């Protein structure tokens, strides 16, 4: 359960869950802002780009896309690793992908830190309708999906990109019941939702807005009709989309794929029952999660999800109780960003609006597995400059007598499950040791490779 709701268990967390009970832990995680996370925020306080507004970023960093992406990436990884609001960070990642924005170029990379700070993070466990509305007014989103330059005045045909994706990807889904005509009309409804180029702030431009002939003549989109209120029509349209049953089903299905398994289908009972909770609670996300975590399907599915690189890296860092030095911010950002690139999940750099895939097949190929193993080798051996494992914390205080005990201790404290006897023997053979060999002080030298073997094994690849 802890593996599913968090970036991975640590001895401290497991002890906490055992002391307050599983239900109390879930309740705690569902109320993230009741938890004090000042320590994590202090770790990333040095990342200046995170709190700058677009104009400041442009003035300070010019074309330095890489710098901004590196700080966003590293903040995401460090928060996933260290935050006490573990579930909240999982949800931030979920919505970052649901409302994916590719930072291919400027101005997107000046605009995304604001989207992260003011759209995704404040709404990640609020109401979906609020999140959707905030995203629709996000300069980064409007630029990425071309709505910022869309105009419907005069002879102009509005750009359909955002209007299409807001239905296809953000809400009702491709089979949500709309047609090409509806897309064209939605583009009219949202025409004029734009970005002030100088400040990088959202602006509604009435002079570029036009409802178009069909809607003006009484037509509808998925049962919604405008009342000729300019921007108010767009708000009402998005509020309508957020509450449609197709949206409820689609959002709950994606959440079920995230928290239960790749095989869950939109028609499954657990999705349907969660969708009713979504609708009964006016799109509030917390009751939806509460219901999912209460389902049999959730409890029956442990270990069935492949960890994406974005899950794997924080999980390894947590398992190894890695300490990072916040004064080494720049080197750390470089190492983390390069690592995510090599592992094939460069955060904020997925070009299609779909977001990174959340199914195992997308992340497992022979090259990807090798990179995962090598990442475990690198991180366990302390070869990543700003990231150092803390093996004494991994081992803990309980006494050990044999090398077998040592292997068991690592397996238990890195994986939090019983090690497969075949894996245990393979690791002992790999270390050139027997299970009954007495533990000697120089066996400390085995720690990095022992940790690497454990983190390369099957249980470490899944959650």
């Amino acid at each position, binding site marked *: 359960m802890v593996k599913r709701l968090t970036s991975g268990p640590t001895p401290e967390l497991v002890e906490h869950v055992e002391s307050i009970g599983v239900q109390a832990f879930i309740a705690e995680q569902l109320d993230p802002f009741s938890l004090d996370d000042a320590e994590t925020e202090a770790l990333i306080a040095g990342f200046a780009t995170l709190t700058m507004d677009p104009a400041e970023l442009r003035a300070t960093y010019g074309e330095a896309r890489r710098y901004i992406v590196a700080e966003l990436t590293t903040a995401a990884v460090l928060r996933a690793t260290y935050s006490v609001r573990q579930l909240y960070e999982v949800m931030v990642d979920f919505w970052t992908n649901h409302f994916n924005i590719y930072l291919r170029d400027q101005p997107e990379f000046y605009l995304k830190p604001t989207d992260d700070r003011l759209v995704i993070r404040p709404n990640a466990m609020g109401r979906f309708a609020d999140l959707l509305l905030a995203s629709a007014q996000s300069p980064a989103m409007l630029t990425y999906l071309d709505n910022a330059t869309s105009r419907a005045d005069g002879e102009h045909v509005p750009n359909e990109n955002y209007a299409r994706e807001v239905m296809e990807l953000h809400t009702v889904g491709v089979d949500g019941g709309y047609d090409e005509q509806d897309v064209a009309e939605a583009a009219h409804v949202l025409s004029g939702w734009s970005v002030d180029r100088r400040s990088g702030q959202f602006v509604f431009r009435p002079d570029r807005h036009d409802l178009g002939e069909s809607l003006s003549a009484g037509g509808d989109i998925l049962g919604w009709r405008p009342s000729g209120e300019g921007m108010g029509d767009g708000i009402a349209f998005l509020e309508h989309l957020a509450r449609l049953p197709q949206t409820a089903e689609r959002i709950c299905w994606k959440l079920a794929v995230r928290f239960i398994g790749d095989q869950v289908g939109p028609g499954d009972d657990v999705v349907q029952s969660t969708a009713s909770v979504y609708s009964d609670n006016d799109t509030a996300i917390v009751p939806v999660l509460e219901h999912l975590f209460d389902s049999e399907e959730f409890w029956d599915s442990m270990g069935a999800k492949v960890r994406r690189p974005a899950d794997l890296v924080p999980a390894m860092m947590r398992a190894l109780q890695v300490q990072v030095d916040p004064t080494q911010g720049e080197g750390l950002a470089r190492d983390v960003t390069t690592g995510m690139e090599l592992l094939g999940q460069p955060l904020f750099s997925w070009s299609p609006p779909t977001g990174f895939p959340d199914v195992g097949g997308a992340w*497992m190929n022979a090259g990807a597995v090798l990179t995962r193993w090598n990442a475990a*080798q690198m991180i366990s051996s302390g070869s990543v400059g700003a990231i150092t494992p803390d093996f004494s914390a991994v081992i803990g205080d309980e006494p050990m007598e044999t090398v077998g005990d040592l292997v068991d201790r690592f397996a238990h404290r890195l994986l939090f499950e019983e090690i497969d006897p075949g894996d245990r023997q*393979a690791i002992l053979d790999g270390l050139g040791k027997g299970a009954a060999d007495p533990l000697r002080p120089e066996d400390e030298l085995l720690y*990095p490779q022992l940790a690497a073997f454990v983190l390369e094994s099957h249980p470490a690849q899944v959650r």
Partner: protein
Amino acid sequence: MTGIGTISTTRRRFVAGIGAAGVLGATHAWLPRLAFGQDSGSGKTLVQLFLRGGQDGLSVVVPHQEDQYYSLRPSISVPPSAILPLTEQFGLHPAMPRFKELYDAGHLVLVPAAGSPDPSRSHFDAMDFMERGTPGSKTEPDGWLARHLKALGTDTNPLRAVGIGTMLPATLRGYDSAIAMQGLESFAITGRGFDPAVIEATLGAIYDSSDPDLVEYQAQQTLATLENIEGAGLGGSPAPERYGNSDAGRGLWEVAQLVNADVGLEAACVDFGGWDLHESLGTHQAGRMHDQVVDLDAAVGSFFDDIAARGDSVTLVMMSEFGRRVAENASAGADHGHGSVMAVLGVGLTGGVYGEWPGLEVLDRGDVQVVNDYRLVLAEVLQNRCASADPAAVFPGYSFEPGDYLGFTT
């Protein structure tokens, strides 16, 4: 072979493999294949060189008879006196002597005004459509090359399909046995103070299930790949200087090594970016476009040298998501356009300039029209060079007859 550990792992997994095959039969797709060579593959290799960013076809295959080309590009055109002549209408960029030589020898097919019919000028949309093989539609989940490989057979040889890079290109998406690798040299266990051969042997003992799930299967594929690479003596080495210093050179070098090692490679994807020249494209003698084509020429020419002895079993196709605006912009560059140039290279082709040429008098929103569908070029390659029985199935929604083919494979 790097050590005792590796050999024993190979034997043990080989025996386990036979056991599993006996129990599960040939339908069990999750079984790594250990044999070297092309005993069950098609024996054909298709290499896709994708020029990412939108290559300006007009700078590569220059329509030097078109007045519009020179009037709309006062500072970035290739003058008629500088081109390497191909036909009456077209000439090559002067920095591409290897292309010229391959063209003269009849190995190189050039198709101007080629591309995807979808009108998108967005990089990601245009690439996405092109790689799916279904312009205008995103309902097909797989890439076109993945569909081709699946149709060709269920062989799970881990070196059957390779994408050079950290993630698989969308062209191979949906083919489970495809590998993303940066290169043979880096396709190795990182020991960091520990013997990689022992790590490999240990992982072989950890991932030894005869009834593998996804993770187990891909782990076994990884180990089998490491063994195949070692078994074929492919330690890997950096690309020789003659390939040039570019992603195209590095990538094609890796592919040439795999082709020549007989590891059963049937599909390879190499990406070469840097073509998005909105500003300062440069002249035919110096600048960014010049440097790009110098790299391209060296990479493709050297690749051909290294695979020529394989005869007609190897085919390289070169394409880009779109070409560029005919008129240069105020920054002496060219914005996103439409039609570009496709190239096909291989022994046994009938080289030449193929396809219709719509001229530059009538443009598509200021861009070269796409009159030669890239799918028709690929379909001809698949059917006549890559053992495809039904190329139409690779491109759903596209109707064509073999009679429509441009005819460069005959």
